[in-house]
């Protein structure tokens, strides 16, 4: 088992097709699963290296990429169903021309166009990598095809991508201003509410305050899994709120090495990692690779996971800005210990609920439905950043650990974690109810 990386995904491609003396037309064409792996590997790299790609934005992109994969796949098979009419605002897509299509090229054309659009703002190195994959993977797929099959396949993939991209444009999340920190946002007055937690000028306003109003994918709206309020804000040492904050503080003073490792393992910082949704996508890609999944299985897993991650961030963000709760570091510095700092960098947005918890619960619930409740696995995702892999007995065991990691890290109170996981479970129910097959 190894962590899913783009180097891994393109390894065979670059070695067999691009770097050797073997002419492309003489090498076997990549199968659809390989095409998906290469593009998802690139997505996960671009997530780490594209300036606006904070976790909510990552989840959105994974949602649309998954839909593109599913619709490309389902449109070529009689046993699969389109998600048009099941997902909010998704109309019926283009119809394939009569005649044979090459499924790898359909996928390549669709994913290439969707990724290029959603990562239009990646930097020069990302653009260079995008072009290299587009051109060279495309050439490798196309080499053995009859020209008419290639033309037809590419045309359909591109038309499908345009359909998905047009749908995405109206969801409220397409435009990210000032890297997601709107200058004109007014902070909520009062001691219970979020205030900046660092000295970074850009982050004196919170991240994406309107994300909770975005159009959802499978659940009806951002408030569909609305949480109850967090424990009432109080500075009374006898209050539930004070007790929660004191727990964060006291846990931080007695952290074991394993607890520190857990906090770091699930830290998944924006611009320094694949982020929490990318982390779960990496887990899923490893699972698919391990079972030798076929194209339909890839499509089912990727679309469901992408959708639930996107919905989870919308639902979570709705709660964050409804309650706009202050972070532990603010409360603890104010009332308990002015010099205290958590071991993780406090994310620049309100506390309740925990985003990692909501989306981890959502991901675990969907992956459990797809792979089973006892699917044990080794997660090597953060090994890219030099951390040791961790073994889990199930997806939910991983989600629970991801949730509690935020308490160990000193950035969330317990209520935000436990209720976040519950919220994720609720959101996942909408995704699990989607029909992707006819049986």
């Amino acid at each position: 088992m190894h962590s899913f990386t783009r180097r891994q995904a393109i390894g065979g491609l670059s070695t067999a097709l691009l770097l050797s003396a073997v002419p492309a037309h003489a090498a076997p064409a990549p199968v659809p699963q390989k095409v998906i792996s290469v593009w998802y590997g690139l997505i996960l790299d671009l997530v780490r290296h594209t300036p606006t790609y904070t976790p909510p934005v990552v989840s959105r992109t994974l949602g649309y990429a998954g839909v593109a994969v599913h619709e490309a796949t389902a449109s070529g098979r009689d046993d699969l169903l389109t998600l048009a009419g099941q997902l909010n605002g998704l109309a019926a897509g283009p119809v394939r021309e009569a005649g044979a299509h090459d499924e790898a090229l359909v996928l390549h054309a669709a994913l290439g166009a969707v990724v290029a659009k959603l990562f239009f703002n990646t930097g020069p190195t990302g653009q260079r990598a995008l072009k290299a994959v587009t051109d060279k993977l495309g050439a490798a797929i196309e080499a053995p095809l009859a020209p008419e099959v290639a033309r037809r396949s590419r045309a359909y993939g591109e038309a499908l991508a345009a359909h998905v991209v047009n749908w995405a444009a109206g969801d409220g999340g397409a435009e990210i201003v000032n890297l997601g920190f709107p200058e004109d946002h007014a902070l909520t007055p009062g001691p219970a509410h979020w205030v900046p937690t660092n000295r970074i000028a850009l982050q004196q306003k919170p991240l994406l305050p309107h994300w909770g109003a975005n159009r959802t994918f499978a659940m009806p709206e951002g408030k569909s899994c609305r949480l109850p309020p967090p424990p009432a804000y109080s500075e009374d040492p006898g209050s539930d709120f004070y007790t929660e904050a004191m727990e964060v503080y006291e846990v931080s003073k007695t952290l074991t090495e394993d607890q520190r490792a857990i906090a770091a393992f699930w830290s998944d910082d924006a611009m320094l990692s694949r982020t929490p949704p990318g982390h779960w996508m990496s887990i899923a890609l490893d699972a698919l690779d391990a079972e030798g999944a076929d194209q339909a299985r890839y499509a089912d897993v990727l679309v469901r996971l992408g959708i639930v991650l996107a919905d989870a961030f919308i639902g979570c963000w709705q709660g964050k800005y409804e309650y706009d709760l202050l972070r532990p570091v603010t409360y603890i510095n104010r009332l308990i210990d002015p010099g205290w700092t958590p071991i993780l960098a406090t994310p620049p947005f309100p506390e309740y609920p925990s985003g990692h918890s909501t989306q981890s619960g959502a991901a675990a619930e969907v992956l459990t439905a797809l792979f089973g409740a006892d699917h044990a696995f080794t997660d090597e995702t953060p090994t890219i950043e030099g951390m040791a892999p961790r073994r889990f007995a199930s997806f939910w065991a991983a989600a629970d650990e991801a949730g509690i990691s935020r308490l160990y890290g000193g950035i969330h109170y317990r209520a935000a974690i436990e209720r976040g996981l519950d919220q994720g479970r609720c959101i996942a129910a909408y995704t699990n109810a989607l029909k992707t097959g006819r049986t």
Partner: protein
Amino acid sequence: MRAALLLVLLAAPCSVHADDAPVVPTFAEETATSGIDHEYTGEWQYMVGGGAAAFDCDGDGRQDLFLAGGESPARLYHNDSDPGGALTFSERPSGLELDAVTGAYPLDVDSDGMMDLVLLRVGANSVMRGLGDCRFSAANEDWHFDGGDGWSTALAATWEKGASWPTIAIGNYIDRHEEFSPWGSCTDNWLHRPAEGGGFAAPLALTPSYCPLSMLFTDWNGSGTPSLRVSNDREYYEGGEEQLWHVEPGQPPRLYSAAEGWKALKIWGMGIASYDLKGDGTPDYFLTSMADHKLQELAPGADGAPDYRDMALAAGVTVQRPFTGGDIRPSTGWHAEFEDVNNDGYADLFVAKGNVSEMPDFAMEDPNNLLLQRPDGTFMETADKAGVASLSTSRGAVLADLNLDGLPDLVVVNRNGPAQVWRNRGPGGHWLNLRPHRDGANHDAVGGWIEVRTGERIQRRELTVGGGHVSGEAGWWHFGLGSAEAADVRVLWPDGTAGDWQTVPSDGFYRLTEGKPPERWTYSVP
């Protein structure tokens, strides 16, 4: 600490502009008449780089200019400026007209009194030996300097104790041949140490390497042995961070660890500017990046550990977005340099800005910054008032007194656009330009310090080679004196000995030769 500084400053003799509003000098752009017509060109492999070097290549006392060209040939421009006059240069065939040059640092490698130049390149780096009269020849082979085949983007140099040749650190960027997955492909930085008998030994790999865009040997803790600070571009590393290396004579280089107090910082590190802003004998470091920039000072209670805290927000130097021009997207910073441009006795800060390459989330019209320091340690943006808020895509720069009038002038290299030249027209207070000199190796006392005392206040400058963004200077070290008409000066030599305090009148150039009284230098027409 700031409060304590403020009390000291209030007790000091009044400087000419020691109120809260520093006097803003006027910089007149003289690009069109300067004789400089040069661009740093190229696409992906030249998205970083674009350095300048200011140094005297013919011994006339004026600093000449070398400008990197990227895909175009680099150029050397001889400084023809009259003292106090317009900035004028003439292109000089020199042997430096190499292509693929990203930046350069002047350094008298063989201590022969003629300045050499180390060229950073995409491909093999080149050490160019100064022959006098602004001519140069390749010296890699003679000096056993392995130029490598990397994408070099940073340099720092020092003389380790007892060495007669310098130690040169070279920062290398990503593997330029990696097309599909360049992220995580940072190539090894190299440490070129002297060989027995002269020249250089085979380079040591500074592993791990994290794609630096600036390096600086600096005695951060006043120990007398400089460490190597490395500012790394987080865009490309995996598991990386900013770095500080122990570089002890005779020992392999070793990273400062968390156990020693080093705190992880992950930024798009692009440039380092250092200056002892508080006058306490330890340098502060300004780090350029994308969006927020950093100003690091040792944390209170650091107690000898390299425990830095960020003071950029408090000091007003986050410069995270354009301050003028209407583009409010985040900024991209490159070269940074402290210099007292209005001679009020407080080091000011210049930052070159420019989009990497069509990155739409960052400002495309990103004005350079000129931040004047107030006596309380905060800074005030004045680039627009001063006339240097260029919206070109800037990269490297030098701030140097090119026309010998005591006012630092400015040259900026722009990517795929003309380099720009500004003459500082003042007003400014009194000043000194000083140049230490010692016999033997390391003529220019790299690794030492100059101290300038006016009343109770002492300004300190560490004599370094490196930092900025692929841009370096050699020659006169500038100090503003405010209203002081004289100052006491001394050199703390690299071996740890302190020269005597000696009084010199203001507004002059002085050579500070070890063991001798200051010698006033005046320009004479060649």
